[in-house]
């Protein structure tokens, strides 16, 4: 395996340093306690520092002798569509109710693929919404109203 400077290594290490550091800094705001009676901050501080240290090691290794990984393209369209779909579901399932929230979520999700044509998107939406309603509401008796209060029902 060829080894040289590696962008993915540096990025991954950076994420670890960032998250570990944030948790470590945050845990300083809680009581650290003593070894006999460790406070709520002690364990996260320790682990946060470990994560940050490992992240730093990955960054350094990435700059000197990193793993050669092909990073590949990022499907921005899919990222945006799926994020929007899931956030929409969380925001509206209570207000709009199960059926409308599910339908819009599926429709938004189909936008993630460049290969889905409008007719197919509508068909997939109808089919999946019906299937989900049958499985979750009829079959598993999930207590979510089919049509929510926002739609005046």
């Amino acid at each position, binding site marked *: 395996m060829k080894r040289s400077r590696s962008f*993915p290594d540096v*990025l*991954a*290490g950076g*994420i*670890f340093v960032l*998250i*570990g550091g944030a*948790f470590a800094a*945050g*845990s300083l705001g*809680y*009581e650290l306690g*003593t*070894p*006999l009676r*460790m*406070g*709520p*901050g002690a*364990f*996260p501080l320790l*682990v*946060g520092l470990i*994560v940050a240290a*490992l*992240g730093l*090691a*990955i960054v350094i*290794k990435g700059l000197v002798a990193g*793993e050669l*990984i092909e*990073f590949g*393209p*990022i*499907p921005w369209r899919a*990222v945006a569509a*799926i*994020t929007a*779909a*899931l*956030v929409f*579901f*969380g925001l509206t399932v*209570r207000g709009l109710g199960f059926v409308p929230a*599910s339908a819009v979520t*599926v429709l938004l*999700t*189909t936008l*993630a*693929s460049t290969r*889905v044509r409008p007719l197919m998107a509508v068909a*997939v939406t109808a089919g999946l919404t019906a*299937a*989900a309603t049958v499985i*979750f509401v009829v079959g*598993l*008796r*999930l207590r*979510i109203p089919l049509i929510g209060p926002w739609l005046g029902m």
Partner: protein
Amino acid sequence: MDLLDNLALGFSTALLIQNVVYCFVGVLLGTAVGVLPGIGPTATVAMLLPITFNFEPVTALIMLAGIYYGAQYGGSTTAILINLPGESSAAVTALDGHEMARRGRAGAALAAAAVGSFIAGTVATVVLAVAAPPLARVALQFGPAEYFSLVFLGLIVSISLARGSALKALAMIALGVLLGTVGQDIYTGTPRFTLDQRELFGGIDFVSVAVGMFGVAEILRNLENEHARTAVAGRVRNLWPTREDRRRIIGPILRGTGLGAALGVLPGGGHVLASFTSYAVEKRVSKRREEFGHGAIEGVAGPESANNAAAQTSFIPLLTLGLPAHPVMALMVGAFIVHGITPGPNVITDEPALFWGLIASMWIGNVLLVLLNLPLIGIWVRMLRIPYQVLFPMIILFAAIGTYSLGFNAFDVYAIVFFGLLGYVLIKCGCEPAPLLLGFVLGPLTEENLRRALIISRGDATVFLTRPISAVLLVLAVAALIIAALPAIRRRREVVFTEED
């Protein structure tokens, strides 16, 4: 005899009509989802998990075990027919299984996998029934110091779950432990890292982490380039292996079963190790070494048996110690906790019907698996033709509904997005998600036992080294760490993974 009484109790529980029905439904659903390309057993179980929460504990856990076996078998089917293994242990099956399929012998490969899995499952169930009770009695003697060291060992060994850089796997484990600290502190009740959100007081839901890291991240990866997928192997004919085949698979099945049953007990990725070891062993002992990689039936039967035996015996650490041996077991821990049962040595005495029922249902699940899969193989092959454009909206929708229904908490759905994106970027950078999930589940246990041990020892940190069992476990953990870090051995690991690619 105790064992017979216990098994009788188990079978009388597992054979209750609703339990058999839901075991069957679990196997069916597990196979149906597991056979879908790119979805491994962990993702399958994570996605179907919320469905089981509506049942009684025994029924739910039996159904979940059924889903797990079904998912594994479904994954092997996909690996054999279209060379798309859903997880690293099925990658071994794909080596020779897919070669066999390309030579028109898919039927024999699938049958060898099914028969091997069944024999391995039966033997490993007996091993589990015999070994679990004494181990649970030993585990009851464990104090917090031993528990901490054991969990620590489990965390370190789970490096083996990931291929590639050990450093990254270690960082993923630690990150999982760190994310596990979100929520109210167990001893003081102080809310930690909750950003003043009430929804986070109970911690991050592990289903959100699992669905995000395995489901959403995987979908994003698949959408990176949308080329037409590999064509499915044609019709599957001649399911029954020839007499020659039958003679050739007996040895590999038995060796694979033994290896798998032994290695499956190891915390952290025993099943992956089991399939690779079995493949290596079969290749070494075979007189037809040159056939390996070109459709040797031994290369399917051995690893598949090892994988299934390990899947069964990986319940041993879970049921006796409360330690999940791999990500699916971590999901099982979550399921136990949702039903108000803390997995560990107490389950066997507090919930005997559940414990023995679960064990008996494993065997029943294996029987159902064979009965279901051999006749229905045509349907599974057709499932492989579902276009991805239908598949991924379905996964996203079911993930959203399932996660929301856990606690009717929209926050859990947002958490999927967060972990999906985080997981996607980290996977792209060569970090695998399985160790993170294990760290996330084991993290709170680590902290709890560390702090309790220190309180009991009055702040004396040497307690971990002066208690013999704890010291041995820690030494093993350090040894595992050194082995993972040594470049020579790591290179060999890479060789094992890339061999015959």
